[in-house]
């Protein structure tokens, strides 16, 4: 029994010693020994190596011998360790002194700082793990002892927090929608096609935010807390229309019950505060409208700034071939057909670049080319003017139809404007493509011209459309006056029928459906935009189905019984038109921004449309398209599309702002009815909802005497920032030139005649040899002998430093023309480099 107890005690002591020993070994012997220990004597690893050897073979006896020898090794090692540990224990004190603890703490903090930058260091995983374990062991030691409990607790909380952050990040990455779809497309078509889908996903995110704003703060409060349908005239379908209010044709046209609902501006009541929450409905409507625009600006500009930072300063043709060699292979490709295409296009691009480099460009007929280009531009201008006039003409006609009553005309007349705009948007770019064949530009420049022309086309169309809309608005406003006059007459009529009482007229209950209604130009505008978006969507989908899918089906199945090879010849499979699709997306978003104020349902519609587009286009791309033959990069295209988006954002918010600021709202519909201008709601809120001093402060702030100097200050700040950025760019260019000049000087020096050729060869050969023989580049060394080197801070992480202050390891050797003996210098350089 006693022996048992003693044995147990001894076992416990042994265990405690083992744990302490591990700690101390790390502290005193450093990383190298740890590496050795890890490589050798981990008991489980030993078993594994035994197993591996057994698997590899050898007879039974060999195995026995090996096992025995290993056992002996293990016991001797353990004995050695115990001896060492006993010696150390005799030397050390039992508890750590406070200074030691402080030093420990500093070391741990240093390591922690290192760990935060660990991700950016090119160390293999093993090294990173080692430094992490080091910190953990120390933190454990620091936590023991009196008064350190708080520290240990803090450390534990920090660890838990880091774990939580990493889990959150993993979760967020897993939540990104459509990741697998995009990956598949990327591997088949390369990164340029996939960039369209990534752009689509980004737009989807923005529209989700816009939708949540309009839905949550405008539509839902009015639906839940506002007066229900049918309670007041503006919320009820008028008696004349009630018979047809539920017809599908009417609903598809956004009339009937769709018109008198939260989807459009006209439904909203101008009551200042609704429901038990006292929700300020008109204020919310106005602020949401402003907020969506502000949010969009913020997001677009932030993305542009981020892209600009990554781009690193614009176009540079000084590294043409180098970039071709090192960045042309797209590592995302995971499909043999695409890889074949990529190989072919890389070869072609190299051949072209070589040809361009070899012969000087001989424009054999500059005049012809210039004439052709001028002709092409003239044709394009004609096209644009023609399309603008066509839209104007069609809109005029539709106004005439509206005046005569839409019921007399068929479907085409009713939807003429939208159909014409969509068709123009479909066919004119093809026409531009054909015209651009005259111009004979480099494909990248031709693409830029094409994009510019399509941009001008869409812009022209949109603005013509808006001008036509303005005409209609003015018509409606003229109508308002008449209706107002009629209303007073009708009301007088109503009261005439009852017994006239002087003091208080009894409230006459009139069914809201019977009250004559004033015209509502805002709802009309909203409806127009919604119709435009729907027809645009339909056109896109139908073009996709016919142009891509039907074409692919025909090519595939008619190929057997056709004279020429359809797949290589005329129709063949279509390629995915990245720029056209991106432009379509951008313009669609512009229309949303324009119309969202008057039709709160637009962001919701767009969200649905983008969702469907994503699935439909992903399917169409994989099913009907082939990878592009000619792969060149529209340079800096990322920021190019963002810049276009910004311009569209600006141009589409202009009309909305103009109408808000200058046109009085309708008197009979919407949240601003009864006010003289829509932004009066702000004034009203300031007066009634905020304390008096706030209103005073605001009135002082909006004093022109204060606003003008502020604007001036901002203009000055912009000018200052612009000029500093110009100086930075200039400085950058100067540095580049200096770099080139220095390297040119080197070439000149190398070819100076007074250097004997033998000496030069000898020198250059020796310096190269010496560099070969030296155990240089500590980072590589650290990488190769993974566990060998300690966690030395002398390993310099790679960074982009300007080449002038070079690291001393990479000395090119003394310049040959340098005063002094080249021979001795040569020896010095080889010696010094070897000693490293």
């Amino acid at each position, binding site marked *: 029994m006693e022996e048992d107890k003693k044995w147990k005690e001894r076992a416990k002591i042994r265990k405690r010693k083992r744990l302490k020993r591990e700690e101390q070994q790390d502290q005193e012997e450093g990383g190298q020994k740890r590496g050795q220990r890890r490589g050798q004597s981990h008991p489980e690893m030993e078993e*594994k190596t035994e197993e591996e050897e057994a698997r590899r073979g050898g007879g039974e006896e060999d195995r026995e011998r090996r096992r025995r020898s290993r056992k002996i090794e293990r016991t001797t090692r353990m004995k050695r360790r115990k001896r060492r540990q006993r010696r150390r224990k005799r030397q050390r004190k039992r508890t750590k002194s406070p200074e030691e603890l402080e030093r420990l703490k500093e070391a741990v903090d240093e390591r922690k700082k290192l760990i935060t930058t660990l991700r950016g260091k090119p160390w*293999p995983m093993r090294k990173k793990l080692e430094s992490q374990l080091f910190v953990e062991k120390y933190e454990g030691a620091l936590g023991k002892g009196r008064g350190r409990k708080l520290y240990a607790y803090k450390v534990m909380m920090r660890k838990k927090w880091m774990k939580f952050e990493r889990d959150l990040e993993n979760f967020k990455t897993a939540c990104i929608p459509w990741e697998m779809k995009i990956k598949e497309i990327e591997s088949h078509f390369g990164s340029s096609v996939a960039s369209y889908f990534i752009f689509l996903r980004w737009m989807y995110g923005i529209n989700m935010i816009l939708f949540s704003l309009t839905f949550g703060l405008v539509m839902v409060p009015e639906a839940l807390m506002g007066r229900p349908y049918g309670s007041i005239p503006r919320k009820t379908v008028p008696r004349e229309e009630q018979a047809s209010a539920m017809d599908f044709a009417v609903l598809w046209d956004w009339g009937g019950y769709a018109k008198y609902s939260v989807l459009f501006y006209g439904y909203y009541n101008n009551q200042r505060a609704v429901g038990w929450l006292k929700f300020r409905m008109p204020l919310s409507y106005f602020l949401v409208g402003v907020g969506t625009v502000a949010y969009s600006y913020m997001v677009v500009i932030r993305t542009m700034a981020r892209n600009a930072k*990554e781009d690193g300063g614009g176009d540079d043709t000084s590294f043409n071939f180098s970039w071709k060699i090192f960045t042309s292979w797209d590592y995302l490709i995971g499909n043999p057909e695409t890889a074949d295409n990529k190989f072919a296009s890389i070869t072609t691009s190299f051949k072209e670049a070589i040809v361009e480099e070899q012969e000087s460009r001989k424009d054999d007929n500059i005049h012809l080319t210039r004439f052709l280009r001028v002709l092409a531009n003239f044709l394009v201008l004609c096209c644009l003017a023609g399309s603008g006039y066509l839209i104007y003409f069609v809109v005029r006609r539709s106004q005439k139809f509206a005046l005569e009553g839409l019921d007399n005309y068929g479907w085409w007349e009713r939807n003429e404007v939208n159909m014409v705009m969509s068709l123009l948007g479909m066919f004119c770019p093809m026409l531009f493509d054909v015209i651009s064949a005259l111009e004979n530009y480099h494909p990248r420049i031709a693409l830029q011209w094409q994009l510019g022309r399509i941009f001008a086309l869409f812009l022209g169309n949109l603005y013509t459309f808006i001008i036509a809309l303005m005409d209609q608005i003015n018509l409606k406003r003229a109508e308002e006056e008449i209706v107002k006059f009629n209303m007073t007459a009708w009301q007088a009529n109503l009261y005439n029928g009852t017994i006239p009482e002087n003091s208080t007229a009894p409230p006459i209950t009139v069914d809201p459906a019977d009250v004559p209604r004033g015209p509502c130009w805002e709802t009309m505008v909203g409806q127009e935009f919604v119709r435009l978006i729907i027809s645009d969507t339909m056109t896109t989908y139908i073009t996709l189905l016919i142009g891509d899918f039907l074409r692919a089906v025909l090519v595939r199945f008619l190929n057997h019984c056709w004279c020429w090879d359809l797949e290589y010849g005329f129709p063949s499979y279509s390629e995915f038109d990245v720029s056209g699709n991106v432009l379509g997306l951008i313009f669609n978003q512009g229309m949303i921004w324009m119309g969202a104020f008057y039709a709160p349902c637009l962001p919701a519609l767009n969200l649905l449309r983008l969702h469907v587009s994503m699935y439909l286009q992903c399917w169409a791309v994989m099913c009907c398209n082939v990878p592009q033959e000619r792969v060149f*990069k529209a340079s800096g295209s990322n920021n190019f599309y963002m810049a276009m988006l910004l311009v569209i954002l600006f141009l589409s918010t202009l009309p909305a702002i103009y109408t808000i600021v200058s046109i009085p709202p309708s008197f009979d519909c919407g949240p601003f009815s009864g006010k003289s201008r829509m932004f009066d709601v702000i004034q009203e809120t300031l007066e009634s909802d905020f304390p008096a001093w706030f209103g005073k402060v605001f009135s002082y702030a909006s004093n022109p005497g204060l606003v003008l100097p502020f604007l001036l200050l901002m203009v000055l700040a912009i000018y200052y920032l612009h000029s500093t950025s110009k100086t930075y760019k200039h400085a950058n260019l100067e540095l580049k030139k200096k770099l080139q000049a220095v390297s040119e000087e080197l070439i000149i020096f190398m070819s100076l005649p007074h250097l004997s050729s033998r000496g030069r060869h000898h020198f250059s050969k020796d310096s190269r040899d010496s560099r070969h023989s030296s155990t240089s580049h500590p*980072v590589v060394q650290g990488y190769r002998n993974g566990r060998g080197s300690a966690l030395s801070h002398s390993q310099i992480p790679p960074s982009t430093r300007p*080449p002038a202050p070079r*690291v001393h390891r990479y000395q090119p050797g003394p310049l040959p023309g340098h005063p002094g003996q080249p021979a001795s210098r040569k020896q010095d350089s080889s010696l010094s480099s070897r000693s490293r």
Partner: protein
Amino acid sequence: MGNKQTIFTAQQLDAYQVSQEKLLFHRYRDLAPQLVPLDYTNQPDVRLPYELIGSMPELKDNPFRQRIAEVFSEDGEGNMTLDDFLDMFSVLSEMAPRDLKAYYAFKIYDFNNDDFICKSDLEKTLNKLTRNELTEDEVRMVCEKVMDEADLDNDGRLSLEDFQHMIVRAPDFLSTFHIRI
């Protein structure tokens, strides 16, 4: 932790600063389920041969797959442990910083592992990229042109700094040197 089977201890998870380490582990395991244990808490020493790594769908069409595996593997032969595998995909992911990618790209294109990209390395790269379709003259011309452009210290080969100076200005470097998993 509530899982029926913990693949990594909590410490190991903290140490691997890679996102989606579980996904990557399962991909690694799928390459050779019989060799890779499910439980990594004892840090077993398992190494997958290059043939398995090179047959992954993300890598099998890449002309540089052998070099990638060699650069990231511990033994320099292309046989990768889980650590190496995670390293590889973390460097090639979107989140890796530009300098780190440039460093590893340099190592990948340095075929003879002498810490310099010399003319022979360039020729090998070019031939891999074009599948030997260019003539010898063209290859020579391109390599000379690249040396002219990028070699700043004029020693006839690209050091890490020359390479980095050139590659960080490239507009598509980040988007092409990227593998999604």
